[in-house]
Each structure stands twice: as structure tokens, then as C-alpha cells.
């Protein structure tokens, strides 16, 4: 029962956040300089009176603001995100078409960064006073300070242009038309560089966080208790310190998911990865604001879903929280 009400509570909260984002989007359009219809249409529609009129009609721009808001919201709630004049397709279709590639990329990057970040952080914590620990932390700091898109470009320069080991761009080999396993393998090869470069920054975040968390847990009294039992250091590290140190990492991972979707815009742009990040870049270039706001909404949706997931995991991991207390 507790879990049902917990999930209900989370969903309620998520719905509120999403509605708030819609309101936010709406006011963003109105806050922009110029006619909202022109903003929505961007450069694309500016020349096309028909399109502008359509937009004015749809948003009821002659109506009072609350009515406009209501029309906009009810449109979105019926999954009508508008039409991208530039791409000649409904926004929703465009996004749904590109979504799987982004999910694949961010999912892979997330797993890579979390797994290696925690391992590196744990190693750095256990070797806090040895050179190897300092080296890990130095590298983490380096990746933490490097612009994501620049790492991506350097990776292309080294692994594609110079060494020619991996493809520099795209989702699969153009014109190869692989099927089955060959297709999977092809996509995987294309995925390596984008996922690694996107994951690198977040790996640095998790490494630093894991180390800090473990060092602070290792100061706690129960670690002293474990040592007084005569447990081996490795067991103490794994069973007592790491397990407790991971709890805050779970929360952090949920928050970082949002950053990862944002980072995907840069990575996908560099690698011409056909996801919604690249779509966002295209929308930017073409000043297709309707599409931009639609993508923005979906990014937020992804983040919220992810936060809910980590929230549930946290609750499973920490026996102290049995109920939906915040």
C-alpha cells in the first residue's frame, strides 16, 4: 500500500511540474520580443501569411491571455504540440521519431558514467593517501573542467580522423543497410564515441561524489564498530562504507540525468547523432521555436521520469524510508 501511495504522490508531483513547464513555455513565447505568432513561426513562418494566421487562430491571439493559455494547454494535453513549418511535419511526430536514438545515447552514457564513476571514486577513496588515488582525482578534475563538445571534437580528431578506428558521425553506416545483428553491431560501433564523450563528464562527477561520500562515511562510528569486530578492510570498504556512501549517489544520479539530456544536445550536434538533441540544434538554426519548445517539454518529461525512477530505487535501498515522507 505504501508503495502505491508513494507512486501516486510522485506522479501527482510530476504532473504539476509538467503543467508548470507548459505555463512557463506559454509565457516565454509571450515574453519574447515581437508578435507571439511570429515567434512561434520563427524565420520560417515570417514570410508566410497563411501560417501566421493559422497560428493566430490556434492560439486565439485576439483573445484575453487566460483564454490563450487554456487553448495552448488543452492543445498540448491532446498531444498537439503544433506543426513544424520548416520540417513540414507535426512536432510530436518529429520528436517521437528522434527519441529512441537519444534514449539509446543517454542510457548508454548514463550506465557507463555511473559504473566507472563509482568504481573510480571508490578506488580513489580507498587510496586517498596514495599517488594512485591522486591520479584518479586529477583525471576526474580534468574531465570535469573540459567542455563536453570539445572532448567530443578531440575524440573525433584522434579516433576517427587520425587513427581511423571509429566512425566520426551518424547513427549507422550510410547506405550499408545492415539487418539483424549486423545492424546492431553497426549502431554499437557508432555509439561508442558519442556515449563515451557524453559519459566522461558525468563519470568525473560521480567519481568525485563517490570519493567524498565514502570518505565522509568512513569517519562514522559504525565503521569503527566494524573494525573492532576484526573484519577485513576490504569487507569494511564494500559492505559498510560503499553501501552507505551510495545512497547520496542515487539522488545525485537522478539530478544529473537532466544535465545529461542537455549535454546530449552538444554531443549529438558534434556527432550528427539523429536524436532530439540534434533536432534541437536544427530547430535553433532554423529558429523553429515551436519545435524548440516541444523538445524542451520532452526533455523535462524525460528528466522527471528518470527522477521518479531513482526516487523509487532510493527508497528500496534505504530501509529507513518505508513511507512517502519527503
Amino acid at each position, binding site marked *: 500500500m505504501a508503495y502505491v501511495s508513494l507512486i501516486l504522490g510522485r506522479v501527482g508531483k510530476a504532473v504539476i*511540474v509538467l503543467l508548470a513547464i507548459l505555463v512557463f513555455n506559454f509565457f516565454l513565447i509571450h515574453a519574447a520580443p515581437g508578435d507571439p505568432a511570429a515567434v512561434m513561426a520563427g524565420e520560417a513562418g515570417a514570410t508566410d501569411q497563411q501560417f501566421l494566421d493559422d497560428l493566430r487562430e490556434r492560439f486565439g491571439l485576439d483573445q484575453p491571455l487566460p483564454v490563450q493559455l487554456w487553448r495552448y494547454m488543452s492543445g498540448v494535453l491532446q498531444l498537439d504540440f503544433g506543426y513544424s513549418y520548416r520540417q513540414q511535419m507535426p512536432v510530436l511526430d518529429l520528436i517521437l521519431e528522434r527519441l529512441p536514438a537519444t534514449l539509446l545515447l543517454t542510457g548508454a552514457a548514463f550506465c557507463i558514467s555511473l559504473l566507472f564513476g563509482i568504481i573510480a571514486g571508490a578506488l580513489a577513496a580507498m587510496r586517498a593517501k596514495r599517488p594512485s588515488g591522486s591520479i584518479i582525482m586529477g583525471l576526474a578534475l580534468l574531465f570535469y573542467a573540459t567542455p563536453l563538445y570539445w572532448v567530443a571534437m578531440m575524440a573525433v580528431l584522434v579516433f576517427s580522423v587520425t587513427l581511423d578506428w571509429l566512425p566520426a558521425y551518424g547513427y549507422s553506416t550510410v547506405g550499408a543497410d545492415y539487418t539483424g545483428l549486423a545492424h546492431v553491431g553497426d549502431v554499437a560501433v557508432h555509439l561508442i564515441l558519442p556515449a563515451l564523450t557524453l559519459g566522461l563528464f558525468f563519470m568525473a562527477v560521480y567519481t568525485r561524489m563517490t570519493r567524498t561520500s565514502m570518505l565522509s562515511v568512513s*569517519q562514522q562510528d559504525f565503521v569503527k564498530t566494524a573494525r573492532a569486530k576484526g573484519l577485513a578492510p576490504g569487507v569494511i570498504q564494500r559492505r559498510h562504507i560503499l553501501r552507505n556512501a551510495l545512497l547520496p549517489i542515487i539522488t545525485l544520479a537522478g539530478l544529473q540525468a537532466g544535465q545529461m539530456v*542537455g549535454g546530449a544536445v552538444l554531443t549529438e550536434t558534434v556527432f550528427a547523432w539523429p536524436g532530439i538533441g540534434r533536432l534541437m540544434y536544427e530547430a535553433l538554426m532554423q529558429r523553429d521555436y515551436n519545435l*524548440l519548445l516541444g523538445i524542451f517539454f520532452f526533455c*523535462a518529461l524525460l528528466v522527471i521520469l528518470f527522477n521518479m525512477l531513482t526516487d523509487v530505487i532510493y527508497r528500496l535501498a534505504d530501509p529507513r524510508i518505508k513511507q512517502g515522507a519527503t
Partner: protein
Amino acid sequence: MNFFKRFAQNRGALVGLVILGLVVLLALLAPFLYPDSPWRMVQRPFLAPGEVSGFWLGTDVMGRDVAAGLAHGAWVSLLIGLISTVVALAIGVPLGALAGYFGGKVDDALMRFTEFFQTIPNFALAIVLVAIMEPSTFSIVLAIAIVSWPPVARLVRGEFLSIKHREYVEAARLVGQTHRDIIIKQILPNTLSPVIVLASLMVATAILLESSLSFLGLGDPDTMSWGYMIGAARTVMRQAWWLSVIPGVAILLTVLALNLVGEGLDDALNPQLARAR
């Protein structure tokens, strides 16, 4: 005295301070070293570093001096990093202070608001804000500030929550000090150390954000920035690697230096936080 000693004990922080000092110097000297606009085409395009004397970092696709761009870009990066951090602090500190001090419904409302901004993917939000407000230094600073204040508010709120129940605050209430005096004189000074550390890291993050926005073509069209230089070099990576490598290294060093300084400040301002417990 003690503060500088503790700061200097962290060798990384000293290195960071030196690098940061050099970047600041470069930014300050830019108008004197390269009085011309960095946008001016001065030589053949695609000159490699050192190929023609006087252009020790070469020229870009349009024949602009890379060194001039680098110097002017330093100014832009530091300025935007600093101002947007100040704006973010100006939003986050009061919100966090009010939420933490008054608690209850005020806290609930302000924290829901903060959570909302924290939930929205912040780079995506910055893109949307700058794109719709039209790229300019003002819109970039505002967008970065809007996406970076929530951690400040949370930090300040947390500090206020823990400090407001300290006995010296309760003593101040008992002798009849006003809420304003208690917030400003009793609590706020005791939250400064972690805020300063966070601020130094925020400048670094702001510089990264600005460069990412410029990379996507959302920079102020009137100012030269490192992110723009890399973005412009992206399509010619194969022919002219230095055009993307050089400004990238500049960003990396600046952000690294700020992080190192931040860690040093943390050591110096919060000595033995863990051990004190």
C-alpha cells in the same frame, strides 16, 4: 593569516591561482595587445600557428587573428562567468535565506519553486531562454543565472535551517532582535564560507555554459568568445585542428584553475569540517 596559510597548503590551489591570474591578465591586456576588433580579417585564412610571424596562433577560416580572439574571448568568458554568478547569488541567497529562516509554508512554496527550476534540464532551459530572448550578453547572463541559482538557494536554505536552531540565534530572539537583524547579523555571516566556495565553482560552470551556448551559435554576435571560435572551427577540423584545439585548451585551463581555487578556498574556509563533528 591563517586563511592564506591553509590556502597555500593546497598546491593545486596555488597552481590554479597562477593560471587564473594569467587569464585575468590576458583579459585585461586584450584591448592594449590587440586594439583592433578580433573580428577583423587581417591575413590569409588557415594560417597555421607560427607560419607567418606576428600571428603566433595562426588565423581562422576568415583570416582573423586567433591570438586576438583568444585574448578578447578571455575577457568575455570571465566577465560573463562573474556577472552571471553574482546574479545567481542575488536570486539564490535571499530565497534560500527566507525559506530556511521562516520555514513552514514559506519554505514549502519557495522550495517547490526551486525544485521546479532544478528539475528542468538546465542546459536545455538556457538554450530556450537565449534563443527566444535573442542572443546578447544580457540574455546569456540572465539565462545562466536563471539555471544556476537553485543550488545556491538550497545551500543557503540548508545552512539557515541548521543555524537558526543554534542557541545563539534563539538567544537573539529572546533579547528581542528583529527578524531582519537576526537574518543579516546573526545567521548570514555564518553561511558565507560555503557560499564563497560554491560561487567560485559556479563561475567555472558559468564559463562552461557560456562557451557551450556560443558553440551552438547562441553567443552575443558582437563579442568574440572561445565557444564561438570552437563552433566555427568544427566544420574545418580536418584541415585546421589548431582552430578548435587552442580555444578549447584555454577554456579547459580557466575552468580547471577556478575549480582548483575553489577547492583551495574550501580547505581554507572550512577547516576540518568533517573532524569537527
